[in-house]
C-alpha cells in the first residue's frame, strides 16, 4: 500500500463529500467547462490501433549506432536482421547520448511521416504501477506488476489499467467524461473489426460496432412484409422489443438487437454518403500489392474509421474514440519473415493511407492515431523468434502530434546493464515510461480534464511528468 499524499487526501474528501451530499457537481462542472470549450469545428477523435500479441520493439525500431546495432544482432541469432546499410537513422530533436535508431526498412511511410513531424515514437513504455529500477527488482523491493508476461492481463493493463476481466477501458471512460460534447453518444465509441476490446466501453458510453466493409442494415425481417406477411414482421418487432424478460442473458441479447434497431439508420446513412471516400488503391503495380492493399483488413478498418469521421455530423459526435485490433504480433517463431512478409507491410500501408486521407479531408489536426501493444519482446532470440517482454515501442500519428522525435530514452543493448532485468528468465526491457503517462497524454488531448485523469489512470500521480508532451 502506497502512502497517500495530502493532495490526494483532500481530493478524496472533495469527491467523497460531493457524493455524500447527493450532488454531482465535480463532473457537472467539468462537463460545463467542456461544453463551453466545445465549438463548432473542434471535432477530436482518438484512434487506437492495437498491435495484438506484443510488438517486438527491437525489430521495429532497430538500434542504429554501430555499437548497439552490433549488440542487437548478436542477441538475435537465427533472426534475420536488416543490414545496417539498409537502415536510415531517425533525425533526433532530443539528444540520445549518441545512440541512434532506425525504423525497419519496411516501415518507410512511418519514417517519412516521422521526418515530416507528423509521427512521434514513444519508446520504453510499459505496464508499471510505480517507477522501477533493475536493482529494486533484483532486491525484491519492487515487484514487477502481475500482468507482465500474460497476454490477456497485459492487454487489459494498457487498455483498462486493470487485469483481464476489467470491464471499463480508458477510451470508454474518457468518453463518459466527455458525453456533453456530443448531441448523443450512440457513436461516441466505435469498434471496427472482429475483435472487441474493453478499451471501448465506459460505464455510460457503450461501444457500437461498425462493420469493416461498411454494411449497416436493420435486423432483417423488420422492414416490410416478412415472407409475405406484415403480421409476421410486426410480431418479430414485438419479440425483439419485449421488456418483460427476467433472465439476464435474454435481456442483454435483446439489448444488442435493440441497439442495432436504434442505430443502423444513421450508420447506414453515414456509409451511404461516404461510398467513394478515400478509396483503397487497386493499382496492382503498387509495391506489396495485394498484401498491403487488397487483402489488408487494417486498411479496410481504417477506411471505415475515416467514413465515420467524415459522417460526424450524421452521427452527432464532436468527440469520439475508435478501436481497431491488428492481429499476429505474437512472434515467438518465424518472426522476421512474419513481420516482413505481412505485418510491417500492412501496418505501414495503413499508417500512410490514414494520414494522407485525413489530410485530404482537412482533418489531420483533429484526429490522432496511436498504437498500443501488450508488451515489447525479449531481448534474446529463442531460435527464430522472441518471447514476451515488458517495455516496448509505440507510434502516435496526426497533425496535432509534435512528431519527428523519440519520447523516451534509447538504451544500450546490454543484458547486464540497467535497462534490462533477467530475474526470472531471459532479459527483458525495463520500462522507463508508464503506459498511464502515455495514455493520459492522449486522453488529455481528447479533452479529459486534468482533475479526472488520475481517476481514469489510477497510478498516474506516481509518475512525473504526468503527460509526455507529444501532443
Amino acid at each position, binding site marked *: 500500500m502506497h502512502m497517500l499524499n495530502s493532495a*490526494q487526501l483532500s481530493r*478524496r474528501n472533495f469527491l*467523497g463529500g460531493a457524493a*455524500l451530499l447527493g450532488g*454531482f457537481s465535480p463532473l457537472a462542472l467539468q*462537463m460545463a467547462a467542456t461544453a463551453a470549450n466545445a465549438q463548432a469545428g473542434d471535432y477530436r477523435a482518438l484512434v487506437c490501433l492495437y498491435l495484438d500479441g506484443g510488438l517486438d520493439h527491437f525489430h521495429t525500431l532497430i538500434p542504429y549506432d554501430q555499437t548497439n546495432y552490433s549488440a542487437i544482432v548478436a542477441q538475435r*541469432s537465427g533472426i534475420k536482421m536488416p543490414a545496417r546499410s539498409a537502415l536510415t537513422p531517425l533525425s533526433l530533436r532530443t539528444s540520445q547520448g549518441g545512440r541512434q535508431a532506425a525504423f525497419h526498412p519496411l516501415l518507410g511511410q512511418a519514417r517519412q511521416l516521422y521526418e515530416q513531424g507528423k509521427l512521434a515514437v514513444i519508446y520504453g513504455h510499459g505496464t508499471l504501477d510505480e517507477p522501477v529500477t533493475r536493482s529494486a527488482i533484483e532486491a525484491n523491493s519492487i515487484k514487477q506488476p502481475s500482468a*507482465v508476461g*500474460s*497476454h*490477456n492481463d497485459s492487454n487489459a493493463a494498457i487498455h483498462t489499467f*486493470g487485469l*483481464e*476481466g*476489467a*470491464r471499463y477501458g480508458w477510451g*470508454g471512460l474518457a468518453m463518459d467524461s466527455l458525453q*456533453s460534447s456530443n*448531441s*448523443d*453518444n450512440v457513436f461516441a465509441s466505435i469498434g471496427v473489426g*472482429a475483435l*472487441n476490446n*474493453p478499451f471501448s466501453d*465506459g*460505464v*455510460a*458510453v*457503450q*461501444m*457500437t460496432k461498425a462493420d469493416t466493409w461498411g*454494411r449497416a442494415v436493420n*435486423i*432483417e425481417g423488420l422492414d416490410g412484409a416478412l415472407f*409475405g*406477411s*406484415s*403480421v409476421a414482421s410486426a*410480431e418479430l418487432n*414485438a419479440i425483439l422489443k419485449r421488456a*418483460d424478460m427476467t*433472465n439476464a*442473458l435474454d435481456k*442483454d*441479447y435483446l439489448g444488442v*438487437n435493440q*441497439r442495432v434497431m436504434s442505430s443502423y439508420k444513421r450508420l447506414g446513412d453515414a456509409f451511404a454518403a461516404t461510398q467513394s471516400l478515400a478509396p483503397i488503391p487497386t493499382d496492382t503495380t503498387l509495391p506489396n500489392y495485394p498484401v498491403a492493399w487488397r487483402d489488408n483488413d487494417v486498411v479496410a478498418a481504417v477506411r471505415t474509421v475515416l467514413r465515420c469521421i467524415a459522417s460526424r455530423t450524421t452521427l*452527432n459526435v464532436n468527440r469520439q474514440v475508435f478501436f481497431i485490433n491488428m492481429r499476429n504480433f*505474437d512472434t*515467438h*517463431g*518465424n518472426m522476421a519473415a512474419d513481420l516482413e512478409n505481412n505485418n510491417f507491410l500492412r501496418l505501414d500501408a495503413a499508417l500512410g493511407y490514414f494520414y494522407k486521407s485525413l489530410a485530404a479531408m482537412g482533418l489531420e489536426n483533429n484526429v490522432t492515431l496511436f498504437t498500443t501493444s501488450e508488451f515489447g519482446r525479449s531481448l534474446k532470440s529463442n*531460435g527464430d523468434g522472441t*518471447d*514476451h517482454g515488458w517495455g516496448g515501442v509505440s507510434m502516435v500519428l496526426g497533425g496535432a502530434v509534435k512528431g519527428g522525435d523519440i519520447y523516451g530514452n534509447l538504451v544500450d543493448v546490454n543484458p547486464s546493464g540497467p535497462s534490462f532485468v533477467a530475474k526470472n*528468465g*531471459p532479459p527483458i526491457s525495463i520500462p522507463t515510461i508508464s503506459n498511464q503517462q502515455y495514455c493520459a497524454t492522449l486522453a488529455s488531448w481528447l479533452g479529459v480534464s486534468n482533475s479526472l485523469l488520475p*481517476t481514469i489512470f*489510477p*497510478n498516474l500521480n506516481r509518475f512525473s511528468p504526468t503527460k509526455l508532451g507529444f501532443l
Partner: protein
Amino acid sequence: MPTGHSNLTINIVGPLIALIYLLLRAHAEKSGIANNGGSRVIFVSNPPNKLRVAVLCLSVGLSACGGGGGGDAGTQTSTQGASIGGQPPSPPPPASPSPPASPSPTADKPATRVEAARFLNQATFGATGADIDRVMALGYSAWIDEQFAMARGRTHRDWYLEDGSKSNGPEYFDPNSDRESAAWFTRVTREPDQLRLRMAWALSQIFVTNTGGGENKPIWMDLTADNAFGTYRNMLQKVTFSPVMGNMLSYLWNQDNNGAVPDQNYAREIMQLFSIGLWQLNQDGTFKLDSAGKRIPTYSQADVVGLSSVFTGLALSSGGDRQGTCGFEKRVSQVDPDFNACELSVWPWTSTKAKSFLGVSIPALDVSKLPANSEAVIEAQGRKNIGIALDTLANHTNTPPFIARNLIQRFTTSNPSPAYVGRVADKFVDNGNGVRGDFKAVLKQILLDPEARNSSQQDKAVYGKLREPLLAQVQYNRVLRASDGKGNVWAGSGGCKIYHGVISEFERPFAAPSVFNYYRPGFSPASGEAAKRNLVVPEMQITDTVAVMDWATYVKQTLDRGGTGCSGGARRQNTFDYSELLPFADNPALLADEVLLRFAAGSDTQVLRGSLIRAIESVSGTTSSARINRIKIAVMLTLLSPEYRVQR
C-alpha cells in the same frame, strides 16, 4: 440536432452513472479500499466513506461495484467490493443459489419431449425429431452410453482427402473453397456420433489451434474427436506431440543452446489455458485466498522458464517441416511415415540441462559421461521429461475444477454454482474406478447433474448460456436437414457478404483469432443486466451489433434461397429439407410447438408461442408455397428470439 427521448435519457442518465462510477473508483483508490480477490480490505479507517461506498453499490446496483470476470476459471464466495485499477478485478460471485445440500436425484427418463429436446440441445448440435424419440425411449443415461459406444464416424482427414476431392473435383483444392469448414459442417450437421463431436468442439475451444488452412484444421478436428471420450492426460499427450500445436505455439524445433533461449510460448499457455490456470482454486472452482484476502498465483515466470526447457527437441521424424504439416496435400500417396502418425518425435538436441517448475526438479543429464552414439538415451530422457511435465499438470489440484468449469460452460450454463463445479471436478479426480481425468465420467456428470436437469435447481434469472454463432448456424441447418444432395453440408460460399457463409467473421470453425479462443470463459459485458449481476457471458464477447445484424441477414437469406447463403457455384449449394415440419404446416399451434420444441426447449415460450401462432395464421392457403412460408416465418421468428438464443 435530433433530441429524441432516448437521447435525453442518455444525456441525463449517462453522466450520472459515469459520475458515480468515477467517484467510486477515485474514492476507493484514494481511501485504499482494495478489492483483493474479493474480500474488501479497508486500509484507511474512515467509517463514513466506507459506509457510503457500500450504500451506493447497493442502491444503484452499479456494475462498477464488482469487477469483471477475467479469463480464468474461478468464482468466489465473498461479497463484492469496489473494483479498483491495479488490483485483480473481482470475479463474479456464484451466480446460482447453491442447490440444497442433497440435490434430489435426476429422473433418468425425460417426462416430456420438451425435456428430451432440452437435453439434446446441450449434448448435440441440435435436437431432431428422431433424436427426441431416441432419448424418450432410452432415457438420458442409456442414450449417453449409446453415444459412448457408437463407432467413431469417418475422419475429417478421409473426408478431406477422398470424399471431398471425388465429389467436388478440382474446385475442392481451391484454397478459397472452405473445404475444411465443409468437412466439419458435414460431420456435425448430419452424422450420428453427436456427443463425441460436441465434446470435440468443446475441447477445441480449450486446446485451441488456428494454424492456417490446408490440412491443419482436419488434423485438429480429428485429434479432438479421437480423444473426446478418452482421458485428460492422454489429451495432453496428443496435443503436446501434435505438429499442429507445435506450430501454433511455436515449440517445433525449440532449442536450448546456440546462444538462444527456449521459446516460452507453450510452457506459458499449457499452464494458463490448458491445465491449471492463473490462480489457485478450491475443488469447487472458487479462488483460494491468502491471509490478506488476495488470490494466489499458480505459477511464476520462473516456472514458465523452467518448463520451457522441457518442451525442446520436438520435430517431425522427417525433421524438415517447420510448418506443422503432415503432408496431406503433398503426400497423398500416403507413403510418408509422418502422414499417418502425424506426431512429433523427440530429437537428441532436446535440452539436457537441469530444469525445475511447479515444485518439480529434473537434474541435468551429463552428456559428457555418456558413451558415443547415445542419442537414443538423450531422446528417451527428453520424452521422459515431457511425461513428467504433463503428469505434473494433470495431477495438479487446480486442473479438475479448471477444466470442469470450462467444460460446463461449453455444454450447459455460463455461471454454474460452485457445488456443480465441485461435483464435476470430483468426477474428474476419480471416475469411480480410480481413473483421473476420464472425460466420459466428466461429461456424464455435466449433463446429468441436478443443476443441468432439474429446473428446480436452476436460478431462472441467470441459468443458461448464449448460443455462439456457429452452434446456432449448425443447429439451424441440422433441423432443416441442409445438404448439397451428395451428403455434404457447405459452410456457405464465397462471394457472399456473409463471410464465407459462416454467419459472422467472429467465429469460423477451428480458426479462433488466437490461442485465447473466440471468447474468454470469464468475459463479462461492461453494461447491461449480466454486468449488474456480475455474471460471465463468454459468448457475448462476439455477440455485438454487427454479429446480430449478420445473424438475421443469414437466416433471412438462407430461408429466401431455400438453404444456401448466396450464390457461390452450384457445387456448394445447400438445400433445406422441410420434411420434419411440413406435416404440421396447416396447423398453426402444432407448427409453433414443433419449431419451439426443437429450437427453444427449456425456455418459457408462452409469449413467443402467441407471436408465432399469430404470424403463422396470417398466411393462409394450403398451397406448397403457403405451407413453406408458414414454416419459414415460424423458424425465422424463433431463431431471432432470445428464447432460442439463450440455451437453457
